[in-house]
């Protein structure tokens, strides 16, 4: 197998006047877990559909598992679409068997039993999909994506609608699939999940790639602009400090947001001089904050000219 499970180079896709994806370069190493993040309508699903060969790019090249994309769908790729994707009237067993056979995996009974047991669903086999709860449906959907032992697994929002227990179960299941050597791409809105699970994260916004790298690489690109402090008992945080945009009281700690360009060490000196400082922590921007910085309403307005230039 090639080093990269998926490679996109110079990929552009337009729908009428709208450019969904622009000049996208992306390489997904084999065996990795790759997170796709981005606001709704940013081009995530279009990118996923191109990798799945449901859409063809207008320009550029896509290689999946060493094969340039052609007319045929690839049996080595498993896919879980965002929400639903199951026949409501079919029984769980029949449905899993059908999806496995569609991928050319005919000897699938053992695999079906394994996954039903693995996800605590052994006695659902003869139940119809329409009788399952949302969380149960989500698990069946996951099973239908992995049932044919794919080499590349694409999960679009796999965790939506799951309670914490099932979320953890599914997270473990994804890690298990990965340990078999499967490359995993998943898109999510839940940044903390992406931060915990993904080796690399890719963010697309308005059809452009805005982030691509490991979580710590990405965090390094963004200056730390938040400080967490605690003063000794009886001391109060001054209501305004030069270079600090906002001060948020969170009980035991205060979170200070730094002005652009202000340095944390000058703040530390200042606070240490003026009061008894018990705790001072420079917070790395979370993926969540980075996401909002890029896609938030303020970022939108400042980004416009850049977009026009490109």
């Amino acid at each position, binding site marked *: 197998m090639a080093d990269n499970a998926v490679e996109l180079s110079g990929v552009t*896709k337009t*729908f009428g006047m709208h450019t969904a994806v622009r000049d996208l370069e992306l390489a997904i190493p084999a065996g990795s877990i790759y997170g796709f993040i981005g606001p709704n309508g940013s081009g995530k699903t279009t990118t996923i*559909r191109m990798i*799945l*060969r*449901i*859409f*063809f790019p207008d320009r550029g090249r896509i290689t999946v598992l060493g094969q340039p994309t052609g*007319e*045929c*769908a690839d*049996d080595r*790729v*498993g*896919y*879980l*679409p*965002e*929400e*639903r*994707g*199951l*026949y*409501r*009237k*079919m029984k769980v067993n029949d449905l899993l068997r*059908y*999806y496995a*056979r*569609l*991928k*050319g995996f005919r000897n699938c009974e053992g695999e079906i039993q394994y996954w039903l047991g693995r996800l605590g669903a052994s006695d659902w086999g003869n139940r119809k999909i329409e009788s399952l709860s949302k969380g149960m449906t989500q698990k069946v959907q996951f099973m*239908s994506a992995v049932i044919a032992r794919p080499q590349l697994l694409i999960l679009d929002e796999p965790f939506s609608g799951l309670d914490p227990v099932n979320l953890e179960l599914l997270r473990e299941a994804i890690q298990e699939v990965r340990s078999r050597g499967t490359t995993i791409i998943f898109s999510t809105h839940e940044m903390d999940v992406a931060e915990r699970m993904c080796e690399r994260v890719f963010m697309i916004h308005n059809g452009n790639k805005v982030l691509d790298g490991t979580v710590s690489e990405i965090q390094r690109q963004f200056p730390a602009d938040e400080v967490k402090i605690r003063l000794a008992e009886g001391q109060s945080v001054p209501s305004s400090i030069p270079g600090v945009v906002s001060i948020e009281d969170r009980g035991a700690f205060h979170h200070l947001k730094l002005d652009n360009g202000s340095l944390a060490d000058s703040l530390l000196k200042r606070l240490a001089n003026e009061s008894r400082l018990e705790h001072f922590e420079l917070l790395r921007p979370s993926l969540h904050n980075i996401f909002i910085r890029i896609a938030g309403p303020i970022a939108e307005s400042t980004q416009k000219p850049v977009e026009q230039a490109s």
Partner: protein
Amino acid sequence: MQKILTIARREYQAMVATKAFAIGLAMMPILMLGGTWIPGLLKGMEKSEDRRIAVIDGTGQLLGPLKMIAERRNQMLPSAMEQSSSDKDGSSKELSKNEQEDRDARKAMGLEEIHRYVLEEVSPEGFDDEQRLALSDKIRNNELYAFIEIPADVLTAANMDLTSPAALQLPPIKYFAQDAALADAKRWAEASLNQLIKANRLSAAGVQPQVLLELERKSAVLGSGLFSRDENGVITSEEKPNELASIFLPMGIMMLMFMIVMMSAQPMLESVLEEKTLRISEVLLGSANANQLMTGKLLGNVAGSLTVFVLYAGGAIAMASWKGFADSIPFHVLPWFVVYQILAVLLFSSIFMAIAASVSQLREAQSLLLPVWMVMLLPMFVWFNVVREPNSTLATVLSFFPPSTPLMMTLRLATGAIIPLWQIALSVVLLIAATAVGVIAAARIYRIGILWQGKTPKITELLVWLIRNPTTARN
């Protein structure tokens, strides 16, 4: 190929192994035949009763004979005949063959009369609106069924001015009842009274009524089978065709075609719509391309339609054999029926798939389906004309119009008339061509439509999907 078969198998199971299918299978014949059987059944449950009819005979000569006619009619009613069936006297033998056939035909159409008419005399002396009101009230109170006013001059009215159209009519007899316009009793009174009036007027003119009866004897024209020479060289005539069978059998076979196409195309609409709205098509397209998907679904659908055919045709043949009608089963139609059925199911199911793919709700599909139904049902509007004249220009033209070919050709073939072989061949060729074009066009709309979410595309957009080259426009 393996994928296509996998898809076909699921589609077949989804179509056949459902409660809706079993119910539909059972309901269809009930609904279709119900139209002819239920009125008959209801009629059978109706109890025969005496219908009292008052007659105000201004002539003073017609009531007596009319009573006799009513009496004779009452004796021939089925209920009366059942009662006297043990003592097999003359009454049933008196029914002429024509009368018997006429009654059979009326019985089949649910028009059998069962009520006895009992005539009562009301004196014409001083009969005025006051009495008319009294009789009308009696009718409203269900004490009387109707009353008939015969004008005094109906027998004697004479007008030598034959150039005036009004002079050709006798003074009218008036019939009063709650359902005066269409009642059986009114038709009976009209026929019987005119017969009596004619006899009376003839004898007044010096002609014996017997002469009239003699002159009025008719000869029936019997539809008969053609002659042919069998393998032993003996010339034989075919069975005389049963008139009822020759009308209703072709219609039944046409309806069977319609039911099968409907039962096949409708599930396709629902299945594609489900795959689209539940985003199943995305998963499927990750495993098979749009052409494999559509081919598989159509294959499963055709297999399902053949199942319906086998069940219905098998049931009908078994039923006919059991009832002793095995001879009238048109076995020669069956192979053609299957050919037309397969093509029709492919054509209509693919159109339904394209429609389902281009909408997002069943409701939106309805308006697009209407024209399709209309075109397909065209032969239903003219079936009676076609049964009478299977080789008329109308029938021939509709046979070559592919959407109506399946219904029209099976209807024509089932009449037993000789349809030129070139017409059958041409209609099949045209239908194959139309089916190919239809399936390809539907596939183009389908592959784009199944991933299309949000607003329903306009007709112009659908045309763009249709025309664009599918290999580059897969979005």
